[in-house]
């Protein structure tokens, strides 16, 4: 798969909650090639913007329309500038980068929290609702716009919230053990590291294959700078090029 650089116009900037936004970019070549789980590396072009690119998992693509969407949360200077972009602004997009999810699942459960749900959204659209359910973990009900986003692509959407304001009270681990008895042959998870670690451990106990999508501070995204390496079971791994998606059995550092 060829990596490409595209100057991408902003086509949509949609608030999903107070701090989470959906950004649609015109990047036809990358949109045509990108697979669920792969990411794009974005550079701000506005003066005063950050020097380094930031990685974002692709949340949706429209191949015919030549667009891709990311879903981001405001966490620092880079994402604060992202919120100021409007139609007529452009960013530089590098992609598609990394290894995506294995798509061979027959019955999949997607387990995610926060913006980790973004790449799972693209995955659910590709797998289709007949074989896909999602387990959404959130802090409180205001984050649960995710249910609406997933609805067209999944059979069931299970929900947990830390405060019990929606779905089951607790983390995803409050319901995961029960769900793993329902015949899923594959679990895909993306979100905070402690969540992924717990999910992977539970899958190992039940002997269900699990893929995790890792994240680490990176610079180039191309496997050159070695900012995002980690120790795997067999070898050193670069999250940007060997991942971000790994089989959970390969991962030793969370």
């Amino acid at each position, binding site marked *: 798969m060829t990596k490409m650089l595209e100057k991408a116009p902003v086509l949509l900037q949609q608030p999903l909650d107070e701090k989470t936004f959906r950004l649609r970019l015109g990047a036809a070549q990358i949109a045509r090639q990108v697979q669920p789980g792969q990411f794009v590396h974005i550079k701000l072009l506005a003066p005063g913007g950050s*020097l380094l690119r930031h990685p974002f998992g692709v949340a949706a693509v429209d191949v015919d329309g030549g667009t891709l969407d990311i879903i981001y949360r405001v966490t620092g200077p880079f994402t604060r500038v992202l919120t100021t972009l409007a139609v007529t602004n452009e960013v530089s997009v590098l992609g598609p980068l990394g290894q995506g999810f294995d798509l061979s699942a027959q019955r999949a459960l997607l387990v995610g929290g926060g913006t980790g749900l973004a790449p799972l959204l693209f995955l659910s659209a590709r797998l289709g609702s007949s074989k896909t359910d999602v387990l959404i973990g959130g802090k409180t009900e205001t984050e649960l716009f995710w249910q609406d986003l997933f609805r067209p692509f999944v059979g069931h959407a299970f929900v947990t919230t830390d405060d019990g304001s929606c779905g089951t009270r607790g983390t995803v681990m409050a319901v995961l053990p029960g769900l793993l008895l329902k015949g899923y042959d594959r679990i895909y998870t993306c979100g905070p590291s402690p969540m992924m670690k717990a999910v992977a451990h539970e899958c190992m106990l039940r002997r269900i294959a699990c893929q995790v999508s890792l994240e680490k501070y990176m*610079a180039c995204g191309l496997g*050159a*700078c070695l900012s995002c390496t980690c120790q795997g079971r067999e070898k*050193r791994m670069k999250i940007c090029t060997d991942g971000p998606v790994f089989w959970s059995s390969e991962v030793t550092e969370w």
Partner: protein
Amino acid sequence: MVSSLLKTDMAGLHLKTPLIAASGTFGFGIEFADLVPLEQVGAVCVKGLSLTPSCGNCGQRVVETPSGMLNAIGLENPGCAYFLEHILPKLQTFDVPVIANIYGHSIEEYAAVAQALDVNGVSAVEINISCPNVKQGGLAFGTDPQTAAKVVKAVKANTHKPVITKLSPNVTDIVALAQAAEEAGSDALSLINTLLGMKIDIRTHRPVLGNMVGGLSGPAVRPVAVRMVYQVAQHVRIPLIGMGGVERVEDVVEMMMAGASAVAVGTANLYQPDTLLTLTRELQDYCVREKVSCVQDVVGQALPQGKQSMPYFQKKEKV
């Protein structure tokens, strides 16, 4: 095709352009092949190689800072045996000179790495005596002129390739280090490596980088690099590869005017991976626009007496 205006002969290297990919920012070149036609690059200086594989530092390894970044990778690399067996053959399929950046934890290890890499397919060796991110080796060898000279001599004695010494800016007198490397037989100098720096997370009360300190690079360090190239150029008879925050063609020209025969692009590769391609085109355009008959004419123009201020050119003219 690259214009012959950009041809650069230096330290026994015949380069199509004076633009080099700086070590540690371009992987082994192959990682960038989709975005930069490698045959248009002057040379690829590969990630620092040691005798045995190294895992590098723990924790966060990079962080952005104003107009730059700090890194503390810690010279992670697969070791020179793996490089020779698995990476160099792939890199050789591209028509681009390969500079092997090397480091060791002892003078003996520098010598051993130089010997291991004295093979076809490697065009030159760049000695890293200036990495701020490994406790032993690296910077320890680059801040004392006598120790630096010992490393250079050991490497020279163990390779047939041109030897480039990469200098640290973390010294009081860069000229003293440059002269020590020259006297020890270095065929060229690279300057500068990164500046030692630190960033603290005020929420956690801790340094951000796992290694606590890291090397500052990017546009923020460019004026320091230009100053050091300008100083050193007036005191050595060997050519200089200037580097430090180069991202635009104006920066390339500035570095050359300060006395650099070649210019390496580092951090910009990380945030704009096609930088070398863009700069090649723009440097060509610059030569045409400014009616420069050959890019090497730019070298040293900003020095007090132009090229005449550079012993490197005086020596050449005598020969």
